[in-house]
């Protein structure tokens, strides 16, 4: 009998979170991520955990702050408009250096946009979204299996660095069904001496706070936090290289568009075009080094994105604009077809080297 199960991406996130020791989930329904909440509602009571449908996304993220302060693993999930509502709470989590996992199953925007898939929250997740100087670790799954494995990874990184890890998926990844192995291996745990667990009159009070009355102290705190971010940029970058050994054209794509791009690349390769792909798995920290190295070998880059060109800015920065970078995009809930990507690959391969 197959050890695998058939799951929707959203369900895989929820089950993987539980397996990773997350027994507290706070959410609010929004298409296309509602299955995360629905799954949690069924499972949490059976394992003695907490599922709570808050009265709004704002409440849910503040409940996350509460549980995170006690050192327990905690998660919330939403889709684009709902994540905007959570932005204030995410900034507070960053200011308090609290670990938590936030899931964004993106839909079209801005505003209410539409319920079809999108990747237009790249800026929001990787550059901030909330106020202040801070970063989130951002993981971009490209299969239902990765929806599970990267959720486990997200909890690990959140605890390791005491900060927010985001899963940046999209409506397609959330809704599609694929076989999944839920064998997630051993779950690492971390000491959290800062957690609010009660002093029992045996230690000094712990205080979780993001307010600093002295500007000097707030400055030091910000510098310290960026030392941590530097370590993450050095140690936690994840990416996949596909047929890059002899590639002259480098496609850069994450999540669902990387799957479309793979089909197009296979087709182009069959016609003798030397094209490969670098797929960032961590969108922050961004895989700058591998892209910079590729810029020495390739003549041009193509970013395939379901937005108006967001990751493309990070690619241009990473390669110091050494080579031209072209955009192949669809928006509004539309997904680029392999044929569209193939046409772009052929066009760039023929004309691409020059500015």
């Amino acid at each position: 009998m197959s050890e695998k199960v058939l799951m929707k991406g959203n369900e895989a996130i929820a089950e993987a979170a539980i397996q990773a020791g997350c027994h507290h989930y706070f959410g609010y329904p929004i298409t296309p991520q509602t299955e995360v909440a629905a799954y949690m509602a069924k499972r949490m009571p059976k394992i003695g955990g907490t599922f709570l449908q808050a009265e709004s996304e704002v409440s849910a993220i503040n409940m996350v702050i509460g549980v995170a302060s006690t050192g327990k693993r905690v998660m919330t999930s939403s889709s684009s408009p709902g994540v905007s509502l959570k932005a204030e709470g995410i900034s507070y989590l960053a200011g308090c250096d609290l670990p938590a996992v936030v899931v964004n199953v993106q839909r079209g925007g801005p505003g209410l946009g539409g319920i079809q898939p999108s990747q237009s929250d790249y800026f929001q997740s990787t550059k901030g979204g909330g106020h202040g100087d801070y970063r989130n670790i951002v993981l971009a799954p490209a299969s239902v299996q990765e929806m599970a494995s990267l959720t486990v990874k997200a909890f690990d990184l959140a605890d390791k660095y005491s900060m927010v890890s985001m899963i940046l998926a999209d409506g397609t990844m959330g809704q599609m069904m694929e076989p999944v192995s839920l064998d997630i291996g051993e779950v690492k745990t971390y000491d959290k001496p800062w957690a609010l667990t009660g002093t029992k009159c045996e230690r000094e009070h712990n205080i979780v706070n993001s307010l600093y009355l002295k500007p000097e102290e707030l400055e030091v705190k910000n510098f310290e936090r960026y030392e941590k971010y530097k370590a993450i940029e050095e140690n936690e970058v994840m990416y996949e290289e596909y047929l890059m050994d002899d590639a002259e054209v480098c496609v850069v794509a994450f999540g669902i568009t990387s799957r479309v791009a793979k089909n197009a690349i296979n087709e182009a390769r069959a016609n003798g075009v030397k094209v490969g792909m670098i797929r960032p798995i961590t969108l922050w920290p961004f895989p700058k080094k591998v892209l910079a190295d590729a810029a020495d070998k390739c003549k041009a880059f193509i970013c395939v994105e379901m937005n108006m060109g967001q990751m493309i800015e990070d690619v241009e920065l990473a390669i110091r604009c050494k080579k031209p970078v072209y955009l192949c995009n669809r928006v509004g809930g539309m997904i680029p077809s392999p044929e569209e990507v193939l046409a772009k690959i052929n066009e760039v391969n023929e004309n691409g080297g020059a500015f």
Partner: protein
Amino acid sequence: MESKRITLFAGHYGSGKTNIAVNYALRLKKDGKPVVIADLDIVNPYFRTKDSEKELSEAGIRLISSEYASSNVDLPALPQDVYSIVDNNTEYAVMDIGGDDRGAYALGRYADSIKKENNYEMFMVINMYRPLTRDVESTLEVMAEIEAACSMKFTAIVNNSNIGEETTEQDVLDSLSYAQKVSEATGLPIRLTTVDEKLYNILYGVVDNLMPLKLQEKIN
């Protein structure tokens, strides 16, 4: 193919109801019967009977579906035409019910008429490779929740155990004892075992009441 006038497909979220309902309707139509298919799913705005609109209309099957299905309007609305299924008993009707108890609530408003006519089959679609219906006990739990939500009782079981494209003939064979146990626990017969058309020839003659499925594609 022997069929009651109304055939209802309900079950756990993602168990394969829509795909089976469309295939079942096409099969009824092949037998020369007048067929109508109704999409009663008010839970999932994505994978809908409407995705098969072209194939259904080419086959001459009437489709009743919310005009908001597969659109950006995430509205749990049902078209008034659904009443034509219970008001007019000259057509064979296939009803695709939304997943779980949440999806089955919408069926409740038609339950009295369906039960009064008493010429229906209500299938519970089961898949042991879905994480929340891995065993008999959890499957029975989902069944009871659905029955309570729509005020109707299941009359038979459809075993649709699969893990998507990776499904092997062995995966199907391994699911037979699970389906048998669900059948024994509920007293309901296993009316169909559904498999992808690629596995049909391999399993034909090995598994009783086998029905091939052509995977319906999501349209953008």
